[in-house]
């Protein structure tokens, strides 16, 4: 480096950038000056590394801000309403005088649509993933997979609209029920939102199972179906479990579908054809008409806290499963 000629140092400029190139020119004429330049580069690199690490941590900061601002507004409610009355109360009449802020029916509403929709979405979503991984030829796969991705990008308001305009009248007429805006309809639409999540994560998990395990099973004379149930699925179980939980979390947090299709009655449902008012729908429907800083306003933020904690719980469980039971090569099977 110390006997580098000026011409060579110019030649290195485009790669190293003008400043570093010029600095190297100086270094060539006076070797002792090398250390500070190296140090300066190191300093710069350190700063750049810090900046990018900060950018990486930004998501964590946003999560913290979300928690902070939900609680900042939400806790005011608990000056007048006790936590148990809020969670377990069975009457949600926020605009009455005196108002009732019991979100029991809203929680049950959220749970019911989440549960029913996963009963629909899990078999279909996992089935579709197995089709992609095992049955479809590569050529068909190439065409079918984007279809699933397109379903994922369908805006939720469109699904809500379809549920309201198409499915609801159909259901009402065919089943002779008072309203088509009910748990079953909302669950059908939510299932369509959850299926792409379930399918794509399950498929990734199926592909992560080592090929040689399956080949060994086939070589022993097992059919592809036997290989699938005894080798592939056990190996991919944690991934499929993660997919199911994330799909359920998606269904629980989804807003527009339940706002438009679930019917909006804050009651404890007794059948699939009852209307419910899940938590996201309550927040979305009532925030617009609530005076800023009123008890009702704080109550909606408090519902936001409950919803946030529930979905966070789902996501943490999913992350735990996928980390804990991850298939790392054939050895752990």
């Amino acid at each position: 480096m110390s006997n580098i000629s000026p011409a060579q140092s110019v030649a290195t400029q485009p790669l190293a950038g003008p400043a570093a190139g010029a600095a190297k020119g100086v270094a060539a004429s006076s070797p002792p000056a090398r250390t500070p330049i190296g140090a300066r580069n190191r300093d710069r690199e350190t700063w750049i590394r810090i900046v990018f690490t900060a950018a990486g941590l930004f998501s964590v900061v946003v999560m913290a801000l979300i928690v902070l601002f939900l609680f900042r507004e939400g806790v005011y409610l608990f000056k007048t309403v006790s936590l148990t009355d809020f969670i377990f109360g069975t009457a949600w009449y926020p605009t009455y005088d005196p108002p009732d802020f019991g979100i029991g029916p809203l929680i049950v509403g959220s749970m019911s649509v989440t549960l029913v929709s996963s009963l629909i979405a899990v078999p279909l979503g996992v089935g579709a993933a197995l089709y992609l991984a095992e049955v479809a030829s590569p050529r068909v796969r190439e065409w079918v997979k984007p279809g699933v991705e397109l379903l994922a990008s369908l805006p939720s308001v469109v699904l809500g609209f379809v549920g309201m305009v198409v499915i609801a009248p159909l259901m009402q007429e065919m089943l002779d029920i008072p309203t088509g805006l009910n748990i079953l309809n909302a669950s059908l639409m939510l299932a369509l939102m959850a299926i792409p999540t379930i399918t794509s994560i399950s498929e990734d998990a199926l592909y992560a199972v080592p090929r040689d395990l399956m080949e060994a099973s086939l070589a022993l004379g097992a059919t592809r179906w036997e290989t699938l149930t005894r080798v592939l699925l056990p190996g991919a179980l944690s991934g499929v479990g993660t997919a199911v939980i994330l799909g359920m979390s998606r269904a629980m947090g989804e807003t527009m579908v339940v706002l438009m299709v679930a019917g909006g009655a804050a009651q404890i449902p007794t059948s699939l054809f009852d209307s419910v008012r899940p938590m996201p729908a309550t927040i979305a429907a009532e925030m617009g008409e609530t005076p800023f800083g009123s008890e009702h306003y704080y109550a909606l933020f408090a519902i936001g806290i409950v919803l946030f904690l529930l979905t966070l719980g789902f996501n943490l469980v999913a992350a735990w499963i996928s980390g804990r039971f991850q298939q790392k090569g054939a050895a752990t099977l």
Partner: protein
Amino acid sequence: MSWHSLSARKLREALAFMVFRLAMLVVLLSLGGILLFVLIHGLGSLSWEFISQPPRNSMTEGGIFPAIMGTIYLTLGAILVALPLGVAASIYLSEYASDGRILKVVRLGIQNLAGVPSVVFGLFGLGLFVVFFGMGVSILAGSLTLGLLILPTVIGASEEALRQVPSTFREASLALGATRWQTIRKVVLPAALPGILTGSILGIGRAAGETAPIMFTAATFYTLYLPDSIFSQVMALPYHIYVLATAGTHIAQTRPLQYGTVLVLICLVLGLSLVAIITRTRMRRTKKW
């Protein structure tokens, strides 16, 4: 034919695979059915006037021009927020992070941010941007909220793009004496750029279709005027659909307008996604470094 005979086992395999085929068919038919239905009903209300004129006659006639423009403003704002932050975060993940506690925390943060319900983002945007920072219900507040919402999408796609750049590229650059940052800026980022752009298109599509986050932060039911600053409220396509379908006084009368708006939104969102998916597939196939 016994339970264990080869033909019985083969039959079970065929039956099971038929069930999987059926599952995929149901999924695809639902998508196709929805698209076809909207296309058939919406095509009739599409016209140049519908796209280029504001609503008239208390929303029962006219077009959706302000809503289209509002959605474009909000989406552009969102990607301006999410792209720099997302790309920087993905550079950290793929180029700088080493296995350790910080990486674990970052991954957990991104995963959980992706799982936050959109209506909670709306509350957060209302609390932080609209009220605390005093931005009011505005394009700015809505764009920031949507930008944070699509951040995990952009990070995920960018990281995948960066990881697809072969490590030999980096090693060659480092071996020539370039520093890590010079390597990233001059070698890795240019190679990953198409993938990063694809990811941002997916993010744009997501932002354009979201309703709940902009309900309390940016959207208004009706403005006669186009926004004149980033502090204006705007109409937006998804919110327009919701309001027309649920809250108008002429719900049945405006049905054609609703179908038309749904069709425009679907064309916008699915069009963007389709472009992203096709370019990605093509890139994966042709790129043999």
